[in-house]
């Protein structure tokens, strides 16, 4: 049996809710409160299991129905740059990992530079300079505004002390 996108989502939701349900039911009862701390999570998980199950059933039903014939003049699908999305997520994850190590100022310059390069590689020297200026400017302006005026102590790097 093949499952579509909704079916897989429903199956994951159902599995997660059924796995967590015993934990909710096993939470201790308290003498002072008529319902224990597990009462409400149980309702939520049952609700999640029901909706997930329904989504799964809907998808199974849809998969069994014969597929509609392709429309001849259908508009072409928009090209999706999933590689860029993966690279963008990786850049954010590395930035967050580096923040406590090399500090906000250096990490932000590197992150803004890398992110711009990932999305749009500069072709000329002017474009590279512009990109560097944006990276340094973002780091400097946010640091000065937040650290000096809004009293947010942005992370300092344990490796750099800066």
């Amino acid at each position, binding site marked *: 049996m093949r499952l579509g*996108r*909704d079916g897989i*989502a429903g199956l994951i*939701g159902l599995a997660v*809710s059924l796995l*967590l349900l015993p934990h*909710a039911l096993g*939470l201790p009862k*308290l003498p*002072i*409160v*008529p*319902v*224990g*701390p*597990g*009462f*409400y*999570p149980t309702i*939520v*998980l049952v*609700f*999640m299991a029901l*909706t997930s199950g329904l*989504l799964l059933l809907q998808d199974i039903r*849809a998969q069994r*129905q014969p597929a*509609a014939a392709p429309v001849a003049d259908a508009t072409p*699908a*928009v*090209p*999706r*740059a*999933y590689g*860029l*999305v993966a690279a*963008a*997520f990786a850049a*954010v994850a590395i*930035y*967050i990992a580096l*923040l*406590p190590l090399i500090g906000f100022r250096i990490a*932000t310059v590197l*992150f*803004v530079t890398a*992110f*711009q390069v990932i*999305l*749009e590689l500069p072709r000329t020297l002017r474009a590279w300079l512009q990109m560097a200026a*944006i*990276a340094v400017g*973002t780091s400097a302006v*946010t640091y000065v505004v*937040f650290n000096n*005026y*809004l009293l*947010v102590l*942005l*992370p300092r790097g344990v490796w750099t002390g800066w």
Partner: protein
Amino acid sequence: MLELLANAIVAILHWKYMVPLMAGTFAGVIGGSLPGVTITMTVIVILPFTYGLDPLAGLAAMTGVYVGGSTGGLITCCLLGIPGSPASIATTFDGFPMARNGEPGRAIWLGVWASVWGGLLGALCLVFLTGPLAAIALEFGPWEYFSLFVLAMAMVAGLTEASLVKGLMSTAIGLFVTVVGTDPIASVPRFTFGSEFIGGGFPFLPVLIGIFAFAQIMTDIERMRDPNRAGLSVGRVQFERFSHLKVNWEIIRQPFLLAWATIVGLIIGILPAIGGSASSVMAYDQAKKFSKTPDKFGKGHPEGIIASEASNNANVSGSLMTIMAFGIPGDAVTAVMLGAMTIHGIQSGPLFISQNPSLSYGIYAAYILAHPLMLLICIAFMPLMLRVTSVRLSVLAPIVLVLCVIGAYALNNTMQSVYVLLMFGVFGYVLVKAGFPLAPLILGLILGDQIELNLIRSIMTDSNLWLFVTRPISGGLLAAAALSIALAIWQHLRHQKRLTGEEDADF
């Protein structure tokens, strides 16, 4: 009441509040005018700047963003045919044809002035009706609150375009996120599995920022290779000669249209989490139905622009009424405002106005003053706004992400919130790709704790569960929730069609 309002207006005129209000309104107009940057995103970007401010100054800045963003979206609507923000979607139907007919100035300024008129009419209702609404809410017990929250979630899940089941499942996910951590009555750890990281639960704002900002930015990045999006710029548009007086006359001479669009926007705003895009489309639809010249709609008809823009700004006042009277966010922007209030230790709800008169009247004043400010900003900075619409995503995205990271970090100056931000950023994007609407999830996140508290309180007061149904208001609210779900099922069955390919993200 009027004396309090006058005092609040005088107070807001002090630079301490005026500067954040002006900055917020400016950011809102700019953010609204950027296609792909929603008002929610703009308010998220502004959020970290408000942590260190006085609560009223922070809320004034966010109110400014909300008002400015509701108007800013019309610029690209009229000039590019792309809504700068979802709240302006219906402005595109007539604004773009009018601009193409050689009247871009008339199209934009009709929209700006209609926003001002609609917003100020909405302000009248905000000032005079929020108090009575809060008085009604004061009569509510935990049963009524529980049922009201259930109604809010049922309405939001039922109104999602993708699928009712997905809307409900999204709500369930949002509710589940709130039960992770310690329970609100006896502080028993739930679903923490001994982890210190999630021991205190997931902080609301990093979760919200992660889900909204990442889902949106990553969806935009995903479409960077779309040839239809390349080269869109309005930086060199030339306005024709036009008169502001004439534009205003065009609006005022149709008082019924203006009043009806305002009422539609207000009602949609009061209803939880429906948002500006629905109000704009519904007001447009109503204007077309009542018009003497419905055949002109879609061809550059001023009535279409007036209805859409008056409605989406009145929608803001409706959302503010709901948050101040009931403590329920009208949409994602007010959800962020609610989160910001919590950071400052302010509890929104029916007692908000009586316990915080200077703050509540300050919000009214900020909302009223944001309109003339927005008008002045549009007049003074229109050329700049036209240039800003051509800022590349490769520049905008990293800056927004840095501000999101600061927004999460600054909550308690620890990296823990930043890790939560990233975790929910990935989760939000996955949900969007799986076709799940985010609005029900956010509402579940916001209301989860309150639903549990009111449910436990009601059972602790009286263990008879039938009271939820037999108490008239509670029963009525639950019946309305059931009706809302039934209507959604009926509507989905009627319009049932197999969706092929990927749907657009439903933010």
